[in-house]
């Protein structure tokens, strides 16, 4: 029977998770050590920034579990760890892995990276010869469950942060952001995060304009962009596609007339303005101009919360699929244990309510 022992973002704070996390290039060596010393027949270790879990199968389960617990603690080098580890057996372990693969157990509900991480963890263990019949079937099944949740439900769809909504909108306007110029006016923190999101999409270059030129230089350096004086920045608006505004100015610094002139200079090319300053930097009437798209923090936040509501509705459908697949797997496990092997059925689509 399979069991899992580990910790995640719910049971352990980040400084403890860091201590236990296993970089993928060390996984094989560690699995070898753990397998020998715990007398487990099969082992898979899943280690990401939000969790480190060891899935195992052993004939002497209690002994193997105890040994693994000790080894995880000594690997992390902190006795505090013992209070944060959880263990799940049998059906619970199966359900746990399926939930993880589905993104139900993630910090950001429904994120997709975890499925690739499960796959990688499994492949490393399998390549090292640490898995056998049981964990092979279990992990392959978990990948199937993760995919099923993704294709049959809307779980994980829709951007879930202000930064990612801004990127999503930018891509809806411009397509790939690869050749796009970005400018940051002012130097607030959300502006920085949003810019990071945009640069992650390989946007071409970034200009930073700020009232205090030193701060502009600092930020520009961090992003590998160039710094501008504030007035220069305003002038350069004709050459950029995306402007993130977050100055500390007490009233609007970008007027309707200014943007109108900018649009004439741009020959009508679309301009995306993200105004996350409080109070706002851009005259709201700017949004009425042709081919200008102005989003303030509330507009972005509203989309985020709509997506989050949608996500939690879809989470219910995802949970139903995990439930159904767990039952099916436990049925297979029981039959397997009794020596009357059966196949695993493929389910038909559950229609979400």
């Amino acid at each position, binding site marked *: 029977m399979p069991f899992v022992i580990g910790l995640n973002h719910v049971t352990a704070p980040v400084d403890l998770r860091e201590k236990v996390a296993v970089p993928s290039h060390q996984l094989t060596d560690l699995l070898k050590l753990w397998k020998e010393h715990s007398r487990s027949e099969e082992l898979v270790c899943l280690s990401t920034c939000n969790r480190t879990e060891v899935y195992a199968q052993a004939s002497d389960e209690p002994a193997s579990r105890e040994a693994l617990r000790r080894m995880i603690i000594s690997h992390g080098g902190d006795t505090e760890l013992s209070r944060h580890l959880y263990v799940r057996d049998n059906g619970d372990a199966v359900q746990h892995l399926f939930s993880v693969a589905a993104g139900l157990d993630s910090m950001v509900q429904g994120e997709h990276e975890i499925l690739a991480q499960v796959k990688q963890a499994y492949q490393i263990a399998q390549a090292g010869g640490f898995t056998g019949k049981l964990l092979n079937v279990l992990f392959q099944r978990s990948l199937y469950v993760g995919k099923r949740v993704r294709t049959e439900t809307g779980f994980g769809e*829709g951007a879930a942060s202000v930064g990612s909504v801004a990127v999503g909108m930018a891509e809806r306007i411009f397509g790939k952001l690869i050749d796009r110029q970005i400018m940051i006016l002012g130097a607030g923190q959300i502006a920085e995060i949003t810019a990071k999101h945009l640069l992650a999409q390989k946007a071409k270059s970034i200009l930073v304009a700020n009232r205090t030129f030193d701060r502009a230089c600092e930020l520009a350096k961090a992003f590998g962009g160039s710094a501008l004086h504030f007035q220069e920045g305003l002038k350069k608006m004709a050459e950029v596609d995306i402007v993130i505004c977050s100055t500390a100015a007490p009233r609007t610094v970008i007027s309707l007339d200014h943007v109108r002139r900018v649009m004439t200079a741009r020959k*009508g090319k679309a301009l995306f303005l993200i105004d996350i300053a409080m109070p706002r930097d851009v005259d709201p009437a700017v949004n009425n101009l042709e081919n200008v798209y102005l989003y303030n923090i509330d507009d972005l936040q509203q989309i985020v919360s709509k*997506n989050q509501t949608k996500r939690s509705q879809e989470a219910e459908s995802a949970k139903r699929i995990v439930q159904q697949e767990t039952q099916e797997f436990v049925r297979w496990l029981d039959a397997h244990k009794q020596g009357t092997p059966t196949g695993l059925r493929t389910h038909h689509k559950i229609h979400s309510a």
Partner: protein
Amino acid sequence: MTPPNWIWLHIPLLALSYLMLLGAAGVSAVFIVQERRIKKHEALAVTSSLPPLEAMERFIHRMIVFAFPLLTLGILLGGHWAVFTRQRYWGKDPTEILSVITWLTYAIYLALHKWAGWRGRRSTYLALIGFGVVLATLITLYYFSPLHKIQEALV
């Protein structure tokens, strides 16, 4: 006098150009819906998987750029044909009038795009209106044009 035998090119040239203009109009309709969503900050704008605005706009423009010379040539050939059948280049036939309006609409679209920086919504509306005129032309062609006598030809 009989018209030269290449005069029939009038028909395929216009058919091909209308087909491209139909493509431009179809994408224009999608563009208008999606552009409004983005302008109104709707969540649906991000979640729906419609193409980016600029890509749609480029497609519309390209279609019209290709269709326009065919349209021009097709209309000119039509006029040439009328010289043989009616002894005049251009008259008050409704199809002839609407054809010229079609041509003008797309000419305005291209001119504004090139010289006035018309992009996005307004210019897309022009593409849609242009195709509206094309449809009107085709209707008159079938029902009202004494020149074309399509109904008789089809019987």
